[in-house]
């Protein structure tokens, strides 16, 4: 037995221990305590539109199937035959009438019920003893979350302020619906998974890691280059480990976030105005979508959706897909190209984030213990709801991530 891991010692108010990124025992512990014991994002309902449509995802060491059943209900089922443990689905997506195991031909319904055992003469257990393992599942605006074990907090409590962030993303559609039909790029990182959510709501690195982008491309990110007091965006810790960079205060015109203008996307502006009314639509089109992480593995990445997948203490995979807006197909082409520009192994941004994260992973492996996490403690503010806000370059977001992480790892809700 390894010594008990003291997360209070490893995660302090203003610093964290480097072993959190590299230690195999800590990795195994977080798979158990975070990915197998509480809510994680699985996928979006728009990925499985028809009955029998399914996708597979990897959570912790397990493959799971998210499927739309014959009654339209969405379930998340462990992708493992209850007989001898074979994978039922090897494909990442498809449509099935039932799940038939390729090993001995056992047949399971889309709801996970064991329907048929071949050569039943030698098998006299009741079939329902060997139904597939079904996860506790809930959803909000099509975002499906699940938990292997009965979670200790309700889905509503888990999402908390995350609901408003998901609302802000979905409401970019004039129909209030997003559609994840563009396919997923998967990017391999030789770095610990926690660097992904940390980096994605780190407003401090943009001028440095992305210096080549800032120099080569005229974009809304260019507005953030300058003296410290010229940066108007803010960083937020929404609680429950949900964090955000709110770029909106730094935008200088409507549709800055889309790199567009109302004249160029006239029909989109019109349909938004029709749905939400002029005043509200104008505000939404100015503020844009959220740039926010929902703990532990979902990133509302402006006009993209991103999933973080831990695959080991030193490796991770980042999934990304464009967030298409139902009712605004005229934006699809632009959103595809923007997604490729920002995210993925050949992109202008994430390619460099990966190299920098991997360099951190190497340096942390040396065992030099501490990483500083104090930036902004001297100036962040907290509202009556406990939401903390600070300058865009402050580590308010990362403290929010780590202190929630600590509460889950200790087993005490923060």
């Amino acid at each position, binding site marked *: 037995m390894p010594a008990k891991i003291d997360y209070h010692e490893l995660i302090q108010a203003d610093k964290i221990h480097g072993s959190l990124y590299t230690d195999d025992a800590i990795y195994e512990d977080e798979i158990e305590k975070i990915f197998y014991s509480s809510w994680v994002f699985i996928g979006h309902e728009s990925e499985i539109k028809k009955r029998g449509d399914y996708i597979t995802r990897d959570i912790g060491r397990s493959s799971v199937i998210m499927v739309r059943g014959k009654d339209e209900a969405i379930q998340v089922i462990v992708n493992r035959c209850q007989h001898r443990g074979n994978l039922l689905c090897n494909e*990442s997506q498809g449509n099935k009438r039932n799940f038939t195991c390729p090993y001995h031909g056992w047949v399971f319904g889309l709801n996970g019920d064991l329907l048929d055992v071949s050569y039943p003469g030698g098998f006299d257990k009741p079939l329902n003893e060997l139904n597939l393992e079904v996860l506790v599942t809930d959803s909000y605006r099509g975002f499906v979350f699940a938990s292997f074990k009965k979670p200790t907090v309700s889905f509503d409590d888990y999402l908390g302020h995350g609901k408003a962030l998901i609302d802000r993303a979905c409401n970019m559609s004039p129909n209030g619906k997003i559609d994840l*039909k*563009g*396919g*997923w*790029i*998967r*990017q*391999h*990182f*030789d770095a610990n998974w926690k660097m992904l959510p940390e980096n994605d709501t780190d407003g401090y690195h943009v001028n440095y*890691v992305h*210096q*080549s*982008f800032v*120099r*080569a*491309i005229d974009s809304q990110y260019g507005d953030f280059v300058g003296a410290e007091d010229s940066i108007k965006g803010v960083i937020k810790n929404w609680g429950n480990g949900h964090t955000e960079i709110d770029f909106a205060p730094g935008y200088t015109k409507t549709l800055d976030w889309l790199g567009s203008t109302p004249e160029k996307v006239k029909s989109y502006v019109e349909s938004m105005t029709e749905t939400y009314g002029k005043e509200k639509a104008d505000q939404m089109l100015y503020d844009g979508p959220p740039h926010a992480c929902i703990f532990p593995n979902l990133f509302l990445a402006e006009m993209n959706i991103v999933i973080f997948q831990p695959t080991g203490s030193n490796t991770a*995979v980042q999934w*990304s*897909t*464009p967030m298409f807006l139902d009712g605004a197909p005229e934006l*699809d*082409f632009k959103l*595809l*190209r923007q*997604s*490729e*520009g920002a995210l*993925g*192994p*050949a*992109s*202008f941004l994430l*390619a*460099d984030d*990966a*190299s*920098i994260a*991997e*360099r951190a*992973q*190497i340096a942390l492996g040396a065992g030099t213990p501490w990483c500083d996490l104090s930036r902004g403690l001297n100036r962040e503010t907290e509202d009556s709801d406990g939401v903390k806000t600070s300058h865009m370059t402050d580590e308010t977001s990362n403290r929010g991530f780590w202190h929630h992480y600590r509460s889950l790892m200790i087993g005490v809700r923060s």
Partner: protein
Amino acid sequence: MSATVSAALAKALEGFIIREAKLADEGQYEAWEALWADDAVYWVPLRDGDDPTQQVSHLYDNRRRLATRIRQLMTGYRYSQLPISGMRRLISNYEFFTEADGRYRVEANFFLPEYSIQSIHDFRIWSGRYVYTLSAKGDDFQIHTKKVLLVNGTEPVPTMAFLI
């Protein structure tokens, strides 16, 4: 309809592609960029048959974005290619066609060993099929499209900031 090309033309087209590969391997970015036509499409889909107007690709560059890509690589701050990976690609199994519009289509398999030295110093293998559309330009050729079909494009792939 497409037709195969003469042996002399095939040799010339192969020579052009070998030169393009060398410029990409060696990070001779401006010379590589100069090979492209104004209607350039440099495309790495996730899989063969994907529709770039509906599905996300690893990259789908028009001429303007291709210029941006080169400009970024040349800033001296593109950390994912700083320093440039060690690369020496092999291209083989060529097929040459003349298309109805007079352009040439060249398809070939590629095998690209990459020594990635920006972070973890990892030796990687990239492989797949190149599909080029080329046309004559003076005594030389120019590239209209280069589609790169990775054998593992739908799987998790590491940083691909170099010119593939």
